[in-house]
């Protein structure tokens, strides 16, 4: 018996594993996309301190 022979269990779970993998990949893409949009729109820009702008 070959070491690489696939058990029936692995065959049955392949679809489930691919599904979970795609969901995780989509999650990463969404978080990355949201971060890019928020950063480029300046949502995370720190407000300048009053003292600095006044030159004090």
């Amino acid at each position: 018996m070959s070491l690489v022979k696939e058990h029936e269990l692995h065959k049955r779970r392949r679809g489930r594993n691919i599904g979970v993998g795609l969901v995780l990949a989509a999650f990463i893409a969404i978080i990355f996309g949201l971060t890019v949009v928020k950063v480029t729109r300046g949502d995370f820009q720190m407000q300048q301190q009053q003292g600095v702008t006044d030159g004090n």
Partner: protein
Amino acid sequence: MSDASLHASPYENEAQFGDYFALLKPRVMTLVVFTAFVGLLAAPVGVHPFIGFCAVLFIAVGGGASGALNMWYDSDIDAVMKRTAKRPIPAGKVSRDEALAIGLTLSVFAVVFLGLATNWVAAGLLAFTIFFYVVIYTMWLKRLTPQNIVIGGAAGAFPPMIGWAAATGDISTASVLMFCLTFLWTPPHFWALALFVRMDYDNATVPMLTVTHGRRATRRHILVYTVLLAIFAIGLGFTQVGGPVYLGTSLLLNALFLKGAVQIARRDEAQAEADSYKVEKKFFKLSLLYLFAHFGAILVDAGLDRLGVWG
């Protein structure tokens, strides 16, 4: 031991990815996605397309999570009804604990990420929707009152309001009326179906209006809710989301819907059985078009408004 049992795989009944997805009630999710999308686009504040996409996605995930929690709690009654017996839990594919874990995790995920992507008013509304559907409807009132359809309809009516809040950060007359549109549409839509489809809610001891109050009372209820619906649906046309397309669509569809409801209220069971529930079936089909066309018209008016067609 039989030959068949020797060859039966021990993994035969193991859940596939689709079984977990089925926990999220994908058919209900399509209505959630559509109405949330309309609420978001009809809002007077522009949203970045990617943020808008994420907002609708998180609202859909929140809706799906509440579906999973509903299946977790209702697995006992799902098992005894023909329509729901093949759902993942009664079918033995997914355990109740797994459904609970998926429902709770996705609920928290959807609310937190909607808050981070848009604002906390929208996130709060989504959290309330999940709470309302799971605790108020599923756990408390569904098995207690024949008005369960009305209460369940409220949970399904929140998505356009959440979409609106995701764009504007607040609640307005227009968004409340969009809520009322789905809320008041659900009872006549469902009760018309209950009149001509034999449902086995009795076996599950879920009180249905057709059984507890009779079919005559159900017919009267359909008319009352249709009149209320017409008032709110046409009223929505005079808010900021209304436009000529919406008003025209709403006036026409409400006239037809009212006509159907009056016919249903005037009929008795003998008449309905004689023509195989022709009027009730027609009314049910019209109800599907009614909701889709109302939200579609809001979308068209919003699009035309952005293109500057109405000046």
